């Protein structure tokens, strides 16, 4: 049972609060991704779990045992670092065996564990090499191997793919996903890349400014963001946001005569300032629809099968709409955009999602 349970975790450097009241449960065998912009505290949270950062208050439980006062080595965790942090003066075998030696593991067992990890990661031919004789992807695998041999309850990954090039990143992402299934390991994974988060996670934790903004399964976050921050962070290209005023019941004014009649959550009050959010992929061209905005195309980026049109609204705002191969739209053209009413999000002035 290797569950990670974090309660009321706070951390501050002097007057600066880096982590504020974090509650988080990582179920046994699950893959949890901490995601958020840089400086949001996700790495600090991971390092707190690892025991590399002392916490100010709150508790951390791993496998049902409170580990707040345990040094990293006794927490039964293993960590894969962003820069891999391989010992440059040791070969691949020794890098993997190093921690075990210090834990006074019998030599035979070290051998057995290292060769098993090497087999899983296809590192066998590289065992005698030094880190500098390895490619980036190979180093990455050694770093993971070093984690595996520890047989930890929890794997901690700190942006492990950010030093790889785009192609390798996708490959390794898949390998990590496979590895997770193979090892049935509990994983806490930090990244700032929402695509990684979406593809890998059983559960995503979106963090911002030291707080957990929302926790949930990837698609839950995509379809039901709790607030404007999560809505904007998850999904690519990002969700369009248009500021509006509730002029009357179910009626939004965007300024310069741009208005929209649509069903609004009941909690909306007349005169309230809100933000309408809609993802580019939920906008259609030309179709006559109930909820529709007119604008002029500034520029279209075509990626092949799909494209993105940047459309200027009469009130000066630009929104991005997905173009699904329509060949007849072009720059400078005036178009009508149909918004799918199920996919419209309305956020209150404080950014929280207003629900019906």
């Amino acid at each position, binding site marked *: 049972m290797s569950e990670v349970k974090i309660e009321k975790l706070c951390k501050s450097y002097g007057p600066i609060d880096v982590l504020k009241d974090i509650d988080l449960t990582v179920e046994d065998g699950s893959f949890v991704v901490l995601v958020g912009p840089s400086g949001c505290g996700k790495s600090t949270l991971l390092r707190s779990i690892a*025991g590399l950062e002392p916490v100010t208050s709150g508790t951390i439980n791993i496998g049902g045992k409170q580990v707040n006062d345990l040094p990293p080595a006794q927490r039964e965790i293993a960590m894969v670092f962003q820069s891999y942090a391989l010992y440059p003066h040791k070969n691949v075998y020794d890098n993997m065996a190093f921690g075990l030696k210090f834990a006074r593991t019998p030599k035979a067992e070290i051998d057995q564990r290292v060769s098993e990890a090497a087999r899983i990661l296809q590192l066998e031919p590289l065992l005698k090499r030094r880190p500098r004789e390895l490619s980036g992807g190979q180093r990455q695998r050694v770093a993971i191997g070093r984690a595996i041999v520890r047989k930890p309850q929890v794997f901690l990954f700190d942006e492990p793919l950010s030093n790889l090039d785009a192609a390798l990143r996708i490959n390794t992402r898949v390998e990590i996903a496979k590895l997770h299934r193979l090892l049935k390991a509990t994983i806490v994974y930090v990244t700032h890349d929402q695509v990684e988060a979406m593809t890998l996670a059983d559960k995503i934790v979106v963090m911002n400014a030291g707080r957990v903004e929302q926790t949930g399964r990837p698609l839950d976050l995509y379809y039901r963001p709790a607030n404007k921050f999560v809505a904007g962070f998850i999904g690519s290209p990002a969700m369009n946001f248009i500021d509006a005023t509730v002029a009357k019941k179910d009626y939004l004014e965007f300024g310069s005569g741009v208005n929209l009649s649509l069903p609004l959550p009941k909690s909306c009050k007349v005169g309230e300032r809100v933000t309408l959010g809609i993802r580019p992929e939920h906008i259609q061209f030309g179709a006559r629809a109930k909820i529709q905005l007119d604008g002029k195309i500034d520029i279209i980026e075509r990626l092949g099968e799909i494209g993105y049109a940047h459309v200027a609204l009469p009130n000066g705002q630009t929104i991005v709409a997905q173009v699904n191969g329509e060949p007849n739209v072009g720059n400078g053209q005036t178009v009508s955009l149909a918004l799918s009413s199920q996919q419209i999000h309305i956020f209150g002035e404080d950014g929280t999602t207003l629900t019906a």
Partner: protein
Amino acid sequence: MAKETDASLMGMSRANYMRLLAFFLAPAVIVYSVFSIYPLLATIFNSLYLRQTDGSYIFNGVGNFGTLLTDTTWSVSFWNAMKNNFIFFLIHMCVQNPIGIALAALLSLPQLKFRAAYRTLIFMPTMLSVVIIGFTWQLILSPLWGISKMLLQSVGLGALFAPWLGQESTALITVSLISVWQFVGIPMILIYTALLAIPDELVDAATVDGLNQFQTFFFVKLPLIIPAIGLVSVLTFVNNFNAFDLIYAMKGALAGPNYSSDIMGTLFYRTFFGNQLQLGDASMGSTIATMMFLIILVGVMVYLFVIQRRIQRYSF
């Protein structure tokens, strides 16, 4: 060095290109050749001549070196100075550099408070002139002023006090330790820089691997700063075989008692410039200087071609 640019690339005439090179290179090369290389060569040249009792010089080939190394008139002093110089060097290697490394290790600990203040203050003696340092310590160790005796007595070790600077068995060690005290800042700073270059994540990785701070230092950091330690060692060697000021300031040109603190630098000074009734001897002085030159050269070569090649350098 593929990045160098040549004349054709810049569309310059050959004459203009030479003028360009001369403009940039001549000042440095001229000053360096005239005031550094020429004197070194001339010294080697001088060492081939012999001073006659009437003050004139005759050509003697490498005879001076034979005299210096084998004729007991000179060789006793020479080997004594050589031995003392090695002791001087060994004390620096075994005391100064380990202390420097230890201080650097402490200073590079994460989350250390007052790091900058410690670093600044510990480096302070290195800033001061050897003359001042030598004199200051002479006062402190002086049996007349009695400061060190008082200090020892205050911790109940008064009986340990001795005129360390005046005893044959302790003079050299005492002077060496004073030099160590002054210059410990240099290995400290160089090693500290090397330690800073080690990525934090590597230390974190070691922590996760279950190493405590001592083990992290010995098994992770230390192997990685070996190149810096090698550099510090060769610097120590060159500086120690060049040392002169401190011993001259504290023990005079005769480096007593009974030449027990005599090193190559003082022997050279005394021989070349003379002392009291001893007249300066330019040729034997040059011979000693040339020997120092050779010793340093051998040391540096050993470092460059034997030690440095075996040292593995790591990029992080």
